[in-house]
């Protein structure tokens, strides 16, 4: 193929060997420590204040490092982790239902469709239990039982009840716990907080990450911030699709700028599409709202049997309805995993059986559950969600079935990191959704919050110390030629964006890019479609740089300028996602290639050819270079998933 070249495989992931359950402990013992008296002299930059960045910044400051923290919102408390609803997994086995660290490890490797690194996943499962202790100590108001102990529930079809939650606002409560720990350190003067500051470039000096270039979004001032190490915790890139469940500001810029400076980008095509979101209502749509997955416990999914049936849902008799999940997957029914439920919804809509004004929707019907359990019981379980649905759609789901459709929700891909969470640029660490680790080709529900906090509270603080202790460095300041060059690049790019003064808005380009991605690199991909997408993305990107109009100047708050920079980076990422999806000639997890399916339409993996992580190197104008990290499975043996 002409779209990329292949380079050397990745030889060393720094993952220790030996029995999997002893690896993290042994590694921790072998790592170097930084003398407490020296920590104050070391500065660490943390970009992002979500679960990953907030917990990391607070912890590093508690340990005595000098921390500089950045986020684009007006307060660190507003990072998009705040929106997570469902819960957080941990292998506490409080239910005595057979859960264990090993089972969580096993479920995560299997759920990731055998495309993740066993060592990392095991560590995640081990650390999960400490997270709950930490959060409870901070005063996170988790749901409790009458006896005063923590309540848990089963989530996303798991067979054990290992998901801890705080009503439908688990992410909010966990983030506020981390935020409060961070604010405490800010109050003590150990963290320098820079809200409304956007990272626009990474500074690499002598091959090491030594700083970032940021723009003060209020004054427009560009500054270069130097440090001994840089941590990126800047979240996922689902907004490349324009419409997603992410917040409007979520972006890939921090990661992409680092990628351009040498950090490999791993598995960019692995995207999670969540089956239960409120459908698009018109061209004005600016984002999509998730309806919690828990609704599938009681709601039944259906569409009319006949194409183009435009009767109201209550006028369609029982025998003219197709409860397609129950029909195709009799044993799991409405509770099949996310990727399967999403694709099935797409298929029935493609057949012309979709419902609602756009034909892109399926019913999620609670009539049976209301008959069986009574309206009161349904209200108690889902009252908040039903209200939210009604606020957005104007329809009452107690009376008419909900309409739902899949939407982009999470990105498993991200910057490549080794076992120490260090990227291919020494001194650049990547945590949370921004890295690619742990979830393979598909993330299990309630595992992103777990990973973010595992990285930030427990893993990074150890591995970063090891790096700092092993690599004493000279101080460099912002006048270093590399730092000056990075800053000049940022200034030039802003000048260029402002100078185009064309005839199309940034949003119009973003929307169009999103449509291309959704069409060809969304729920189902194909060779021909991806090639078409790549050509379209290139053509549109060229148009963008000729025709975009960014009003105003760079001197103060300019939201169009912020968006323009982000969309420019999404264009480059989009192409890499398509190349990655094209090269992976198999279906696995969230990546479904039309050409690679079993006779009954399920994802078909090709372990002989593709049991590896695809880590992409940026080469400037040339094609990206693929580096493979081979995956070996010593504990969980690859099998084909089946939910029939």
């Amino acid at each position, binding site marked *: 193929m002409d779209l990329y070249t292949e380079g050397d495989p990745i030889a060393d992931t720094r993952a220790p060997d030996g029995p999997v359950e002893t690896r993290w402990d042994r590694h921790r013992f072998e790592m170097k420590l930084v003398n407490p008296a020296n920590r104050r002299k070391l500065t660490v930059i943390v970009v992002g204040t979500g679960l990953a960045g907030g917990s990391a910044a*607070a*912890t590093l400051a*508690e340990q005595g490092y000098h921390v500089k923290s950045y986020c684009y*919102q*007006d*307060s*660190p*408390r*507003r990072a*998009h982790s*705040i*929106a997570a609803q469902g819960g957080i997994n941990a292998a506490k086995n409080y239910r005595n239902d057979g859960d264990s660290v090993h089972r969580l490890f096993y479920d995560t490797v299997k759920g990731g469709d055998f495309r993740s690194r066993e060592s990392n996943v095991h560590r995640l499962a081990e650390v999960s239990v*400490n997270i709950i*202790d*930490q959060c*409870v*100590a*901070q*005063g996170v*108001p988790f*749901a*409790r*039982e*009458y006896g*005063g*102990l923590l309540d848990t529930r089963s989530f996303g079809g798991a067979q054990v009840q290992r998901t801890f939650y*705080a009503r439908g*606002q688990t992410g*909010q*409560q966990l983030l*506020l716990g981390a*935020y*409060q*720990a961070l*604010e*405490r350190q*800010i109050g003590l003067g150990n963290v320098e907080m820079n*809200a409304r500051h956007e990272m626009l470039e990474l500074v690499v000096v002598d091959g090491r990450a030594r700083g970032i270039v940021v723009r003060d979004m*209020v004054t427009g001032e560009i500054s270069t911030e130097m440090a001994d190490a840089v941590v990126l915790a800047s979240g996922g890139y689902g907004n490349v699709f324009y419409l997603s469940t992410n*917040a*409007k500001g979520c972006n890939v810029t921090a990661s992409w700028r680092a990628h351009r400076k040498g950090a490999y980008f791993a598995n960019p095509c692995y995207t999670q599409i969540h089956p239960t979101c409120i459908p698009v*209502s*018109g061209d*004005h*749509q*600016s984002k999509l*709202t998730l309806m919690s997955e828990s609704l599938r416990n009681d709601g039944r999914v259906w569409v009319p049997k006949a194409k183009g049936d435009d009767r109201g849902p209550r006028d369609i008799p029982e025998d003219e309805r197709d409860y397609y999940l129950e029909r195709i997957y009799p044993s799991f029914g409405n509770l099949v995993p996310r990727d399967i439920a999403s694709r099935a919804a797409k298929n029935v809509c493609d057949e012309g059986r979709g419902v609602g004004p756009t034909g892109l929707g399926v019913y999620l019907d609670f009539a049976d559950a209301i008959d069986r359990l009574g309206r009161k019981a349904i209200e108690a379980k889902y009252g908040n969600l039903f209200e*939210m649905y009604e606020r*957005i759609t*104007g329809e009452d789901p107690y009376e008419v079935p909900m309409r739902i459709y899949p939407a982009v929700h999470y990105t498993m891909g991200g910057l490549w990191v080794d076992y120490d969470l260090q990227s291919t640029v020494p001194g650049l660490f990547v945590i949370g959704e921004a890295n690619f680790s742990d979830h393979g080709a598909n993330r299990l529900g309630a595992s992103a919050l777990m990973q973010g906090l595992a990285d930030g*509270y*427990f893993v990074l603080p150890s591995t970063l110390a090891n790096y700092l202790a092993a690599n004493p460095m000279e101080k460099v300041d912002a006048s270093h030629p590399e730092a000056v060059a990075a800053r000049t690049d940022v200034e030039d790019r802003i000048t260029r964006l402002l100078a185009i003064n064309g005839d199309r*808005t940034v949003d*119009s380009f973003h929307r169009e890019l999103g449509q291309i991605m959704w069409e060809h690199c969304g729920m189902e991909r194909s060779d021909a479609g991806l090639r078409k997408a790549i050509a379209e993305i290139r053509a549109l990107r060229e148009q963008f740089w000729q025709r975009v*109009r960014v*009003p*105003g100047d760079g001197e*103060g*708050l300019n939201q*169009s300028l912020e968006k323009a920079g982000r969309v420019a980076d999404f264009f480059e990422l989009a192409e890499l996602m398509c190349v990655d999806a094209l090269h992976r000639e198999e279906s696995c997890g969230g990546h479904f290639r039309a050409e690679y399916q079993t006779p009954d339409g399920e994802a078909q993996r090709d372990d002989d050819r593709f049991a590896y992580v695809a880590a992409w190197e940026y080469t400037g104008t040339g094609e990206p270079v693929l580096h493979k990290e081979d995956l070996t499975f010593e504990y969980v043996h690859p099998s084909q998933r089946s939910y029939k």
Partner: protein
Amino acid sequence: MNLTLRIWRQTGPEDKGRMVTYPVPDVSPDMSFLEMLDVLNERLILDGEEPVAFDHDCREGICGACSLMINGEAHGPQRGTTACQLHMRQFSDGDTIDIEPWRARAFPVIKDLVVNRNAFDKIIAAGGYVTAPTGSAPEAHSTPVPKDDADAAFSSAACIGCGACVAACPNGSGMLFTAAKVTQLSLLPQGQPERYTRVIGMVDAHDEAGFGGCTNIGECTSACPKGIPLNTIGRLNRDYLKATTKRAGTPGS
């Protein structure tokens, strides 16, 4: 439907600012309020004007970024609803809608509808936490918490830090926000050791940041999209009183 918007435009902190009228035709009732502003902004950009700056991020009522005074009401007419969750079906064809920023001494305007709410972070930094450095936590089940206390703590913890309470209060007081955090932590066993230093620290920071005093008017609660009740302020006051008496009794204070 066709609407007329009157929007506060202010180029920067030094500008005096003014209301500007914009007709917005063809608004769909299914649009959210912010999507309606997006439509206006797209048009302004193509007409060569500066779009209206406003804060927003999650657009699902949880991040607390959106902050619009709509027809004089914080977050607009629908109770328990943030501006981003408000939909245009709440309005009628021909309506004129006034849109202004939060107005409060502690929240200076940055541009148009965007204000600086950093003062809220300062209140939290002054005590709105439990001191529990990473790694120091005991096993989670070592301290059971009665379900009612946990549920009540959650209800206060639901505050999204939007500042509607401040904008709605004639005194520009941030007491509801402060009380929500004080209440959450004082209901939990983990919050007890710092209970009294916390309340003093937070109230002092609140006053220093330029918020007004609370005179129990109650506008805050009606504007609050998360229904934080007024009696949290009563709780705060009781703790504060206890704390100041305690402080007076502490040797060397």
